[in-house]
């Protein structure tokens, strides 16, 4: 630093001298280095940034907000409260393809009283596998990591692999026969029930 400032003062005041002092060389070298690095980074970075913008595009994709679907009729539910799995039929979008009126998921429904229905999501809150009804144990079983739940979706194995009970869904039985369920998906692997966005 000191060296540089002292050689600065030795330079001819007009600055038109042909001789290049070591200070000027180092300054030009510094400028050239910086310029090369900056421009080189920019040249590589520009396409990279454009690429990254399109790569990050999936973050902007939001799921459809949960809405009510007609899933079944009350008559279809066993009187004894045995759960039954019903598909939810709606449009499914897979990037550029739109599938009209196809299953987009399923729900478990069961009677819990006269005209009362309980709906549980089939997705295991642990790792997102699909839970099945296990008639032998009269409860639910996730085939991936053997988490077990009772008919109300409470965890029955201790310690449970699942961080929370099965996710209950909102049900509406307008007119006492058609069963409508608010179909939503929740984040897996966490103790709180957070709707996927």
């Amino acid at each position: 630093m000191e060296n540089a400032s002292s050689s600065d003062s030795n330079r001819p005041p007009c600055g038109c001298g042909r001789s290049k002092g070591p200070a000027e060389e180092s300054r030009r070298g510094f400028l050239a280095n910086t310029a090369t690095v900056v421009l080189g980074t920019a040249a590589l970075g520009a396409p990279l940034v454009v690429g990254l913008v399109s790569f990050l595009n999936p973050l902007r994709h939001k799921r459809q907000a949960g809405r009510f679907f007609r899933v079944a009729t009350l008559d279809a539910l066993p009187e004894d409260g045995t759960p039954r799995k019903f598909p939810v039929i709606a449009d499914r979008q897979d990037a550029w393809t739109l599938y009209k009126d196809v299953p987009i998921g399923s729900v478990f429904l069961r009677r819990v009283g006269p005209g009362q229905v309980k709906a549980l999501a089939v997705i295991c809150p642990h790792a997102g596998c699909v839970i099945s009804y296990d008639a032998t144990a009269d409860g639910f079983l996730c085939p991936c990591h053997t988490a077990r739940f009772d008919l109300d979706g409470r965890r029955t194995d201790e310690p449970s692999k699942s961080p929370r009970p099965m996710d209950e869904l909102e049900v509406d039985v307008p007119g006492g026969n058609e069963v409508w369920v608010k179909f939503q998906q929740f984040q897996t692997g966490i103790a709180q029930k957070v709707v996927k966005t």
Partner: protein
Amino acid sequence: MKALCDWIDSRTGLGEWLRRCQAARVPGRVCLCRSLPLVLVLAFALQAITGVFLLMRYCPSSDTAWESVYWLQYETQGGWLLRAIHHCCGQAVLVLLGLYLVGIILRGTYRAPRELVFWSVLLLGLVTLGLLLSGDLLAWDENSRSATLTRVGFLQALPGVGESLFKLAAAGPEFGNLTLSQFTTLHTVILPGAFLVLLLLRWWFVRRATAADDAQPTDGPFYWPGQALTGVVGCLILLAVVFGLALAHGTTGQRRGVVLGAPADPVEFYDAARPEWAFLGLYGFSKLGVFGSGTIVPIFVIPGALVCLFLLMPFIGRWRLGHVFNIVLVLVLLGGNVYLSCKVLAEDRADGRHQALLRQGELAGARMPVLIRRHGGIPPAGPLGLLHDDPKVAGRKLFIQHCASCHDYVGPARDDIQFGESSAPNLFGFGSRRWIAGLLDPKQVDSDHYFGNTAFKRGEMVKFVKQELAELFEEAPEDRDLLILALSAEAKLPAQREADEKDAKRIAEARELTLIADYCTDCHQFHEEGRLGTAPELTGYASREWTIGIIRNPADPRFYGKRNDRMQAYAKTDDETKNLLTSRQIELLVDWLRGDWYEPEQ
């Protein structure tokens, strides 16, 4: 000629390089273990070559990925072998890198100045794991989609960023077209590129390290040709192993090469999904549940901490005790991995439900070429429709879903379905001569295979078979055989068609003697004899129409009426939406039970 050689030499410096190679020596002696790097290079070349040819035939989208792999596997000459070599060599690379890493740690050659060599090998291992994971999804069959979905789904457990990471990894909120194209890029461009760069870096770091510790040997054997030849022998061993694995299931038939499962269903989940062998240990660890609920600790924190610990090994190993610690850690991890993998395999083997579902997956996968060839090709709507309307697969699946919690399906075949304690008759071969012979056998009628676990254990039928019928048959043993033939003929089972035709005379004789009417119509109805309401009708017993009827409503007077034990009515009404199963589903189920499905003529 010499002029040409000189010209090439002066422009490329090739001669100088060759002379240096010839002068290079090996420290110590020529050894097969020293050829590991060369074998890795060969393995990479093998993967690159087979990978390029696979990529030429692969179409990554949710409507074409499985279809294009199907085309390779079943309709392209040598396509199955190409897949198998690529798959097996990938597994071999992981094993080789594991061996290499363990060797480095045991010999302590990760210490200065070889830290970077060790790290590049460690990273090569991680990149290879990434290649295995990303490659697994590309087949887009039941297992690959479900298992990958579970793995990528674990990202959601990370607080705050989980959902965003999942969307980035899957290239959208759900698995689909973009997930496949992204994983294809990862598997064919990004990760192989990283692998190649790391291989080159490793070579460079080895050179630097050898120069740094002045270990350039001056008296050992020459590298060329002794060690080079040994290297080639190592490569040939790898080739032999890879081809051995690829051809392990033979060169013909459904199971040759690497299995291709049934196509992935966009919303259904494959219940028997399991990770690949390399991840079974981690899977078993997460299943232990030693950290309670949640997946962050077993899936992210502990494996992450282990990777960090491995990265620090060169520094830990500077102390004598640290080196011992590193060795113990590696051995414990290896042992633990093997133990947990075996534990998972043993648990799965003992789990009847899992075995039935696994077999279901195998059957569905093996059935696809049959169904597609029968149809003449894959319909534009996709191959799943063919599978969903096939009794052999869909019927069996319906049985697992709706019947197997009470009924077993256990016979001499591999297709057994047995969830545990059964509470209803074994339905394997229902209506066949063998099945009816067992039903009328006083020793078997109240066993687990028939009425042993039902309310009928103390019923009239069991009492009758054990006492009266046993005595009657003792007096007229010929009646027993004729009765079985005649009753079983009512079922008109496809598998018994030839036997029934062969025994047509005896069956007619039984009818003339009115055996069924004589023995059974005190309780059962048979054509005009007997009456309904006390026991199931025997007219057309176990026929397609009869079996559909009993599944629709077993409490119908034609079947068990008010005496029905616990069996549900699966289609009590004519309104499909109110029934547990649709008419078509019941048909599929019954056709499967009766073994009535399409098989190609050999």
